[in-house]
Every structure is written in structure tokens, then in C-alpha cells.
């Protein structure tokens, strides 16, 4: 099924959980905040977060800024 991650389309397996998506993107264990459909998913809830077709995911980190 297709989802959108950081504005780009991504094909993932049906029934994938959020940690599976993060692992697929090489972000396992890295500090990053995740939004699914414009709502933050706290780290403690990642394991129980199942991704659905069409979901829009944002994965962010901290960068230099003023």
C-alpha cells in the first residue's frame, strides 16, 4: 500500500507498524518526532501505531535555527 512520508510517496507492506516504517527508512533508534495525519505520535505509542493506506507521515528532527 502507498503512504506519504515527508512529502514523498512510499510503498509499504499492509499492516505495517510505525517502527517498521522507521526501520525501513533507516531511522530506527534515531531521535525523531513523528506525525501521522497531522497528529504527533508520542514515542511510547509508536509500537501500537499501525499505518494505513494513504496515511501522511511527517518525520522531523532538530536542525540549526534562530
Amino acid at each position: 500500500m502507498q503512504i506519504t512520508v515527508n512529502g514523498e510517496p512510499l510503498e509499504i507492506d499492509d499492516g505495517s507498524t510505525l517502527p517498521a516504517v522507521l526501520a525501513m527508512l533507516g531511522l530506527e533508534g534515531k531521535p525523531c518526532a513523528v506525525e501521522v495525519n497531522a497528529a504527533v505520535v508520542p514515542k511510547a505509542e509508536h509500537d501500537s501505531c499501525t499505518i494505513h493506506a494513504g496515511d501522511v507521515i511527517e518525520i522531523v528532527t532538530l536542525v540549526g535555527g534562530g
Partner: protein
Amino acid sequence: MTTCTRPDIAPLQLGPFTLDSRLIVGTGKYETWDIMAEALEASGASAITVAVRRERLLDSDGRSLLDAVDLARYTVLPNTAGCFDATDAVRVARLGRELLDQLGNAGKDWVKLEVLGDKATLLPDPVGTLEACRELVADGFSVLCYSSDDPIMAVRLRDAGATSVMPAGSPIGSGRGIANPAAIRIIHDLLKDPAMGGDPSYPLVVDAGVGTPSDVTLAMELGADGVLLNTGIAHAKHPVQMARAMRLACEAGWHGYRAGRIGTKLFATASSPWRGTINVIPGE
């Protein structure tokens, strides 16, 4: 014999946050991470601002901000830079909180709120800023509000529950300093003078536009409690030296404001006595 002692600067209280330094510095625009780390150190800042951006999914190798900054040393203040409406600013603030929570940094409970009007001026959109401020305060954030130097807007943000109002000295990154000192002074009095409904402990931070140390000193001499800057250090020819200068300028302004400056006069008043001069004084 030296009688020089380290200047005693009272800490800056921003809601629940107590900062040793009254200078808050940004982490953007540095040529290298090493120069940034050294400049942060030289600035003496205990709080640093950062931005929240998409993780690079295809190019995530290489050193990042999180590798370059000793997070244990700084309270990280995430901003909502780049947001042009309240909805996005609130989303970004919540993402920043989630990140800092994961990192175990105290900064998870505050945010530097920016809701911008357009990309050319980077001036704040007052309506969106007020709307986002209300929502974030209701969500438990300590909101430090980037604002224009409009005194009435400053009062509105304070009344909406902002932990601090942070008027721009001049547009972000412009280096034009304090474009309208009278406006900053009026904001100061409205927010802090009890006779004008203010509270002396309410923190006023001048944010943006600082180009040179004297801009920082002027802001502090106008009665600001602190100054937030980024480009003035990061884009200086020698950022580390400029960071040191900004720190000293901040301390100078803080002491200068409290020391009570003399009034201004049109004509001169001699510092040496007239009595006892050996010469004739013209006109006498």
C-alpha cells in the same frame, strides 16, 4: 593589585526556566558545526534556539546538530520558524516538544513561537501569532512570542498568556539593530511598569535584527531582560570573537540600565573644577 571581579548578573527568569545568561543564541547559519559549538561556548548562553525540519530520508548520513551540540549543557528552545499560520506553528511546536522529550532536554516545555507574514520581510503575522499563542498556552507550553515592535500587540500577547514577548529590533537577519528604540521602550513600560498595568518581573526579550554588540547593549539599556540573536554571530567574519563581544555587550547593557544613566544636556558641563585655574577664562 586587581580588584576586578566577575560581574554579578541576576539570572533571567522565563516562566519556569532560570537562565544564567541573558543572551539566547541561535544555532543556524554557521559555516561549520565546530565554529558553532565554539561560538555557543563563547557567548556564555545557557539556552539555544533550534528549528524543526523534516528528516532527510535519502541523505541522513553526516554530522547533524544533535551530534554537534552538548545537549546536557543547554536548554534547547525549539522555534516554529518557517510557519505561516497558527495551525502549522502549533504542529511544529508539538513536534519540537516530542523531540526534546525523547532527548530528555528541559526545553520540551517551551517554544519560540514564530508565525510569519511572508518570506520577504519575515515579519510576524500578528493575527496568527495571537491565535497560536492562545492554543499553545492552553496546551501547557511556555510560549516565547516573536512579535513586531508594536506595543499594543505586545500587550495582547502578554494577555494571551505568553511567557515572554520578544519584539524584533528589526527584521530577522537584517543586522539593522534596534530600528525603533522608542517602541521598545514603550513596550517595556506597558509590560513592566505597574503604573501602566505592567509587572516588573514580566520578561521582555529583544529578538532579531541585532548586527553588532552595541545593538545588544542598547536593547539592554532600554530595559530588556535579555536578547536573542543568531545571524549577528553566525555570519560575523569571526563568529567566536563576535559571540564573546555579544556576551560582554549584554552584560554592559544590563549593568548600565540598572546603574541609572545621567540625563542629557544640550551644553557641556565641565568635569574639572573652574575654581583654581591659573589662566584667564574667556568671557569672564
